[in-house]
């Protein structure tokens, strides 16, 4: 057993940590308030290699393992959950799906521009009436000559306001349930494709979340990703990867809560001494740190399992479930340690708590993770 990060990943972590502290930290409050990220930031992320971190080098990506992605996600989310979710949807969902199932032609066409930030990617599974029950999606892909016409509504699409490339799951065979769904590339601007207004959210506000309207949007045979009717099966594998990323994002938020709380507890004087001298505060810090360390090991374990090409469904669900709920607890404790100041936007911890709540909902709610875990336990016997 070896619990040490490689030198390569440690070095990457230092670079990203510095970037996050210098570039994100001073701006995160405003980005959260205004629900926006500056365009130039996207290119800076691309220059750092973070928009193609998992994408093969032959297409301009960094070709790094999921473990490296987890480390990067934690460092970015440590300062800004919104930027981290932009990366999660771009790398963990859109590019994961393309990396896994796209044809060489599709890869040539899309990946080089997606890894630089010239294009941002989004991924569309959820619909107004199908969230956890994703296989019940109703967006139709009806045959039209060699291609298809996509008609329906997508909901809660991360990066949709900015994205050029969307991987959209639509029903190609209404009689087959989960095995009648296919994945298509839809580019922004196609006739019939409308991107709706941003949702006004509790947290992760710098990352945009939009509805999509598809009204007979044409997709040619070159737009089908993977095999026909295999879109939902591939989507589940994408989510297995995405969930590890959301777990890693949760780690960053929780670490923010912990680090800010330690600094505050050491500086804040009450009853003639730093509040860090009180067991009431010490115990909250100890619990936050213990759970954070446990969650990080779970996330890294799942990431390494993906990197070995093994089935990581169970580990990914366990990591996401624990890390996301842990991050929400850590956020609440951080606010408590900061007292009244923690309840104001002058301190970042209320934002970490708001951001953390998303992690227990997006890419499979905590309830879905528990179903995945329990089913595996009950069926292995």
């Amino acid at each position: 057993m070896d619990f040490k990060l490689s030198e390569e990943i440690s070095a990457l972590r230092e670079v990203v940590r510095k970037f996050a502290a210098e570039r994100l930290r001073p701006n995160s409050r405003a980005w959260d308030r205004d629900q926006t990220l500056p365009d130039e930031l996207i290119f800076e992320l691309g220059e750092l290699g973070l928009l193609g971190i998992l994408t093969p080098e032959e297409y301009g990506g960094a070709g790094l393992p999921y473990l490296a992605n987890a480390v990067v996600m934690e460092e970015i989310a440590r300062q800004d959950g919104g930027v981290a979710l932009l990366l999660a949807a771009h790398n963990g969902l859109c590019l994961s799906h393309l990396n896994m199932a796209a044809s060489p032609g599709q890869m040539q066409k899309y990946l080089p521009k997606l890894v630089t930030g010239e294009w941002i990617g989004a991924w569309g599974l959820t619909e107004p009436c199908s969230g956890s029950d994703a296989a019940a999606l109703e967006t139709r892909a009806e045959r039209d000559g060699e291609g298809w016409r996509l008609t329906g509504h997508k909901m809660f699409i991360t990066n949709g306001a900015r994205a050029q490339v969307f991987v959209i799951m639509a029903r190609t065979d209404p009689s087959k349930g989960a095995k009648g769904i296919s994945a298509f590339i839809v580019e922004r601007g196609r006739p019939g494709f409308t991107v709706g207004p941003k949702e006004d959210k509790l947290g992760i506000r710098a990352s945009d979340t939009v509805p999509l309207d598809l009204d007979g949007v044409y997709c040619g045979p070159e737009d089908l990703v993977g095999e026909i009717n295999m879109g939902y099966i591939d989507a589940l594998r994408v989510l297995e990867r995405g969930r590890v990323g959301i777990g890693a994002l949760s780690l960053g938020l929780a670490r923010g809560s912990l680090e800010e709380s330690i600094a505050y507890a050491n500086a804040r004087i009450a009853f003639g001494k730093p509040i860090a001298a009180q067991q009431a505060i010490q115990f909250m810090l100890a619990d936050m740190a213990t759970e954070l360390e446990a969650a990080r090991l779970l996330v890294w374990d799942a990431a390494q399992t993906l990197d070995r090409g093994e089935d990581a469904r169970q580990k990914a669900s366990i990591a996401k479930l624990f890390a996301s709920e842990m991050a929400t607890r850590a956020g609440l404790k951080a606010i408590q340690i900061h007292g009244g100041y923690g309840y104001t936007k002058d301190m970042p911890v209320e934002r970490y708590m708001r951001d953390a709540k998303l992690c227990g909902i997006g890419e499979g709610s905590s309830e879905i993770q528990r179903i995945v875990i329990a089913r595996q336990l009950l069926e292995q016997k």
Partner: protein
Amino acid sequence: MDFRFDDDQRQLRDALRDFCDNEIAPKAAKRDEEGRFEEGLIEQLGRMGLFGMYVPAEYGGTGLDCVSYAMAVEELSRACGATGILVSAHHSLCVDPILSFGTEAQKQKYLPKLSTGEWIGCFSLTEPGSGSDAGAARCMATETADGWVINGTKNFVTNGGEASVVVLFAVTDADNPKHRMSAFIVDKRTPGCTVGKLEKKLGIKASSTAELIFEDCHLPKDALLGERGKGFNIALATLDGGRIGVAAQAVGISQAALDCSVQYANTRVQFNQPIGKFQAIQWKLADMATGIAAARLLMYRAAALKQAKEPYSAEAAMAKLFASEMSSRVTGMAIQVYGGYGYCADYPAERLLRDARITELYEGTSEVQRLVIARKLIQEPAWVTRG
């Protein structure tokens, strides 16, 4: 980075699992009921090499690494929590300090017999008036011309009944607060050393928890373990390692709780279907598995750090804190899955809950673990982002 066991460790685990399933688990309920280990158990464990796991071969041990040791404690505890702590306390609290702080002569004298289980080891720090505040111990060691005389009463000594060898902590310089205590290796047969009350406990009933009474107990000069005045440091260093063992015990007990809960959920039918079909039950199983997975990684991470001779005190405290509190929750959930049957001794869940509860108390309570962790965080905030 690789969180998996190596091939040797996997083979050892498979062999141990067989042994535990066939030899240890079937008698766990009987041990609990009778409050003692059956005749021959210690010899049987000894033949399996389970008393000298990280003792180098030159002293008669099997020379295993710390991860393998933790895994053995996990597997034993999955079968029987009391047997798990018998092996864990022996290793972590007696063999380990002799290995780490003993002279060559002390190692030669004690380790071969400790490794076979001919001698069982224990650790004696706690006193009736000093538990978490271990530095306030009062048991005295007075230096004489040819050695030491011990006077005082120790209690809550795990393995104290079976043990032949005691790693004892006693006050040698009452007026020197920084170097107040020293450690000794005591042959329990020494005149003046007697076993007092054996505690009746909630759980781990087969494991003895003894009072040790020292009345003018004369020890030779070479009974001193490590330097005079360094006893408290030796105790703390020893307990760091012990916490890995207790965490492993908690993980093993919890795994047993999950295993039996899954089996019960698949077979118990209510409302015309196995109760495992209900989300109410599925949620518990998922939370149990998640907690166990997290605790197991914390525990093996601490063991790997100890093996690599890197600092691991805070990591061991986290592992013990998380694993022990998790085990109480998980075994409680197991009872809930079993319903009324879980409350009865015909099923293992209630024993598992009782056995799990001790892990939050001994070798440093959860409160002491939190103090250890918080001190690290407050004094060294950069530790949070360590490499």
